[in-house]
């Protein structure tokens, strides 16, 4: 039996996450791996927004900031368990995405990009300026999730980096599963339809404004959970998580890897997370090389790395 594209993607993803540690020379690589998964989760959300629905956001780090600071603030001020704080952050992000998305998703293309950019900047400004609450630019501590202690009690003893590798890897697989389910569902088809032709989508009954908002809210929840995971594993958070650069990084990862494909976008996250470490051999030219690689990929592989390579392989097979 031929595997569906959904099952293939999930299988590849789970296998890579499970097998990669065999080749890790030091525990540092678990840390890089978990950062890739955290970024990969946010980028999977952007695949739904950019790849499925064809809408852009340059402010999604704002939602990552909300998710991150929820984990820092809710345990202290509301007495919530950090896991519940992450859920609260996700709900808050969804509510804010709903309110912000309604007016700005009427805009198209670069107008939408600039409006969403404004939203991201707004969130990072609030986090920087409300110093009594957030510690300002110096950041603040985040409490321990506590799941590792629970695992240890039942006999699964993982180091801190190993635990976060496994846990964020698991969340990423779940996130990819949900995104792939959506792709093949009526909602996913409505999103891809409005991406293809808004006027045709309308005439088959798609409420375009509603579905754009659905994609925006879902992708905001992904970004929020990604921010929460980052805060919980670093046990410390600064307003940079909501910053402009983080938003740009997310979109770049998605587009570089292939915004239309979940696996491609995660590959983009992996490359842009590890590339700066690899390129340190170029010393002071590191940033230059990074920029060059990004430009070359976009010039020669417009659909993004994975879709372009897949098409080339398929073309050769035929």
């Amino acid at each position, binding site marked *: 039996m031929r595997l569906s594209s959904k099952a293939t993607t999930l299988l590849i993803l789970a296998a890579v996450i499970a097998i990669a540690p065999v080749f890790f020379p030091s525990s540092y690589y678990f840390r890089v791996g978990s950062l890739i998964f955290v970024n990969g989760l946010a980028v999977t959300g952007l695949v739904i927004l950019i790849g499925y629905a064809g809408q852009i956001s340059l402010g999604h780090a704002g939602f990552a900031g909300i998710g991150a600071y929820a984990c820092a603030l809710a345990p202290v001020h509301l007495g919530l368990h950090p896991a519940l704080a992450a859920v609260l952050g996700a709900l808050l992000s969804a509510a804010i995405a709903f309110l912000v998305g309604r007016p700005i998703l009427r805009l198209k293309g670069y107008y939408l990009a600039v409006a969403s950019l404004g939203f991201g900047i707004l969130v990072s400004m609030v986090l920087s300026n409300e110093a009594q609450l957030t510690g300002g630019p110096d950041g603040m501590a985040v409490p321990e999730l506590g799941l590792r202690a629970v695992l240890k009690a039942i006999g699964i003893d993982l180091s801190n980096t190993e635990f976060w590798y496994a846990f964020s890897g698991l969340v990423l697989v779940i996130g990819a599963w*949900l995104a792939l*389910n*959506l792709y*093949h*569902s*009526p*909602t*996913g*088809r*409505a999103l*891809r*339809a409005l*991406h*293809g*032709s808004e*006027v*045709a*989508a*309308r*005439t*088959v*009954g*798609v*409420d*375009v404004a509603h579905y754009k908002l*659905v994609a925006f809210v*879902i992708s905001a929840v992904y970004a929020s959970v990604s921010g929460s995971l980052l805060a919980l594993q670093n046990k410390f958070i600064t307003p940079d998580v909501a910053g402009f650069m983080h938003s740009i990084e997310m979109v770049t990862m998605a587009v570089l890897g292939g915004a*239309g494909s979940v696996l491609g976008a995660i590959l983009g996250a992996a490359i842009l997370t590890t590339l700066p470490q690899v390129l340190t051999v170029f010393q002071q030219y590191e940033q230059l090389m990074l920029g060059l690689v990004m430009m070359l990929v976009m010039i020669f592989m417009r659909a993004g790395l994975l879709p372009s390579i897949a098409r080339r392989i398929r073309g050769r097979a035929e």
Partner: protein
Amino acid sequence: MSLLQIEGLGIDFGGLRAVHDVGFSLKPGEIVSVIGPNGAGKTTLFNMISGVYAPARGRVVLDGEDVTRIPPHLLARRGLSRTFQNLQIFQSMSVLENAVAGHHLHERGSVFADLFSLPAARRRSKASEDSARTLLDRVGLGRAAEQEAGSLSYGALKRLEIARALALKPRVLLLDEPAAGCNAVETEEIDHLIAKVAAEGVSILLVEHDMKMVMRISNHIVVLDHGEKIAEGEPAAISRNPRVIEAYLGAQATEVQNADG
């Protein structure tokens, strides 16, 4: 009792009267064609009826209900669907997915069910896929189902748009030049398809340049020139109407007469 009633519809573009005071009606199962020279305002009229443009004057009444200025997705719920002169295909989807997407109103449900791929969501998808395959067979695209939509010929894409519009199970179907760019065989196939759909009780409003086709299948013809209705009636009467012949002039005028003969 008319299903679709157009009353004094008009719109201006920058001071120019693109369409002015156009009215006619459509009974269930009737095929009405709108003809006229290029730039007569046919597509603009379609865009107003289907909610893409908001008319400045007049009313569109669907089944006794005023639906003027109602957005297209709500008109779709009331059973009005259309195709486009300049193709509006979902290019990155397969042929099958395009036809499935036409079932949106029948398959939409909870986003949560879709995210978690719950049995309800899978059932909805399966039902619309089955129906989409039947529709593709009907328009002769059954074997192309798994192809990328972008790889089809122009004539095939025209038929795919019809299949997608039929997926809605519309009561009124607006077809904007369905036979444009099709060869004689394809035109005849579309011709038969339209007649069959109308025979099932769907009212069809047609814009078409192929006069032979228009004369053959229309119950009623509305002629536009410079945005205004200059004539209306049965095909035979229209082809003899001096104002219509004058509007078309030359080659096309003889074509109208030949089609009648």
